[in-house]
């Protein structure tokens, strides 16, 4: 029953919020159907032990910080047997605070001290005003709350202002007042790291090793952005593009910007003529050279798929020499997860082919600058992994958390510290090379 002491007050409201949120997260996780296969525990442990790194999710403060506290009135129940009646009555009169239990032992949560719109029929006009105990009693009396259930004197306590998003936040919030909380398995898996199984972590490591190699071979960047990048289609694990920053050739040739344009080439588009820029005039790929934007686009899907066999496209060309791991799917695409819309999902995908970098995973040596991070967002990549932070210019953790900025129309998930030590070593090597 809703109104029993144990039941969550207004739990339906809360759950709606919860599911809407988890819906948003599932957008980001779209297609993710958990670890590919179950493996024996022994193997998991063995592999985990051999790994020197742990991917750290870069989350917004909404998930990492505890809720601020606010003042609230509680009334002390004279008799415990009236709990149910009191909760029912108060929740009808002063609804709200759905993330909190309405009662803790004999303490009944009445309302916050800060004036809220629900109390509009009180005589208060100043919105910043604090509700006094006298006014609250007056309000309760007018709404026919039985004040005789409570002790005369109300108490003022601290309660968490915002609903908890994670188990850890819920535990901390519960230290001040009991909370209603339904953990979101998707979020908890991201936080605990269980979102990836050992095979996926092996793949992530293998891709990052290519990125490191690419950076060592070719990266020439600047203070703004520097390093190398790799784009992979998680559906089959195919490496689509590998790039190293080349700001000596063009001020916009940051690794991620180049990789995005290389993927555009695979779809019959692309802007930059990389062939002309390389000193030895090597072609990126024999077929790609003949790409004519105007005609290819008209050919639609055929054009988009035309160069798929040429993957990965690389710039600089020398990156082609880096050996690639065997392609294997990074996740199982959740088939027809939503049966109603399944038709449009699958068929339209087939019909129009890939769109920008939708759904791709991107690996970067270093945290990207605002230009690169936003370019990846425009391109609709779904996951970004990077090795080391760029404290001076990075916006996926260091100077900002761009992917949590409200209002942006697409979100990706971000992990840092992948092969952190190796990336750091590569970085030091590049820096000393550049300065020598």
């Amino acid at each position: 029953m809703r109104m029993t002491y144990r039941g969550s007050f207004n739990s339906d409201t809360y759950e709606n919020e919860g599911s809407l949120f988890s819906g948003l997260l599932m957008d980001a996780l779209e297609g993710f159907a958990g670890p590919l296969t179950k493996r024996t525990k022994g193997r998991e442990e063995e592999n985990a032990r051999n790994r020197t790194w742990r991917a750290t999710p870069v989350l917004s403060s909404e998930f990492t910080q505890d809720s601020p506290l606010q003042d609230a009135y509680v009334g002390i129940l004279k008799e415990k047997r009236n709990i149910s009646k009191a909760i029912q009555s108060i929740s009808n009169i002063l609804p709200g605070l759905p993330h909190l239990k309405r009662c803790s032992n004999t303490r009944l949560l009445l309302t916050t001290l800060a004036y809220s719109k629900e109390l509009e029929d009180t005589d208060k006009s100043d919105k910043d005003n604090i509700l006094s105990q006298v006014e609250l009693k007056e309000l309760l009396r007018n709404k026919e709350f039985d004040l005789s259930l409570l002790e005369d004197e109300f108490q003022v306590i601290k309660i968490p202002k915002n609903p908890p998003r994670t188990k850890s936040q819920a535990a901390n919030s519960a230290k001040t007042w009991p909370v209603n909380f339904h953990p979101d398995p998707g979020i908890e898996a991201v936080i605990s790291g269980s979102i990836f199984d050992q095979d996926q972590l092996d793949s992530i490591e293998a891709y990052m090793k290519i990125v490191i190699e690419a950076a060592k071979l070719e990266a020439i960047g600047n203070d703004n952005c520097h390093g190398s990048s790799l784009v992979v289609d998680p559906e089959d694990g195919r490496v689509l593009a590998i790039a190293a920053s080349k700001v000596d050739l063009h001020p916009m040739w940051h690794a991620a910007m180049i990789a995005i344009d290389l993927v555009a080439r695979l779809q019959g588009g692309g802007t930059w003529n990389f062939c002309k820029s390389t000193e030895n005039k090597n072609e990126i790929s024999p077929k790609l050279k003949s790409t004519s934007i105007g005609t290819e686009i008209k050919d639609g899907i055929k054009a988009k798929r035309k160069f798929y066999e040429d993957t990965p496209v690389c710039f600089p060309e020398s990156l082609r020499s880096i050996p690639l791991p065997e392609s294997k799917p990074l996740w199982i695409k959740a088939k027809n997860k939503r049966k109603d819309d399944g038709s449009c999902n699958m068929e339209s995908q087939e019909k129009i082919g890939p769109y920008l970098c939708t759904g791709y995973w991107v690996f970067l040596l270093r945290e990207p600058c605002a230009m690169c991070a936003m370019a990846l967002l425009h391109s609709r990549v779904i996951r970004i992994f990077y090795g080391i932070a760029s404290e001076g210019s990075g916006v996926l953790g260091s100077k900002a958390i761009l992917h949590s900025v409200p209002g942006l129309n697409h979100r990706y998930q971000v992990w840092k510290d992948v092969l952190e030590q190796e990336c750091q070593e590569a970085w030091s090597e590049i820096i000393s090379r550049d300065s020598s």
Partner: protein
Amino acid sequence: MASTIEWMNVALEKAKDALKAGEVPVGCLFIYKNKVISTGRNTVNETRNATRHAELNCIDDVFRFCQLRKLNYMEVFTDVDVIVTVEPCIMCAAALHQLKVRSIIYGCANDRFGGCTSVFEVPKLYETRIFIEGNVKGNEAMQLLKEFYKGTNPNAPECKVKKGRKRNAT
């Protein structure tokens, strides 16, 4: 010497070109020593590259301009005034700050991606202080955007928004 308004009119013409070509209608001019050295518009659909905004196309142009004339592009950019019909997005604002252009004059605000003030304040990330002024013929720029979004993007996947969720959200 043309006024800001006159330049914005030219940029708006470029934005109209983009609209005719089925691109998001944003037009842009780069002005150096009181001369337009580059005009650009969005070419995202044409290039299948979501980063091909008007400003980045102009940056490429100016870079070529400098290469041909053996000019130091870093010096040239610091004397460039950017006239663009819509507030530069976060990516473009970052690019313009990295290149240290002299000023950015824009038409309407960009509520979806704006990198000057609307969604995220890129200037706070950089030491370079660029003169930024908005709302120059903003209504006209906005009208073009509205016209574009009345239609549908021919390249977007058909059902990006889950129908059920859309209902929940509204």
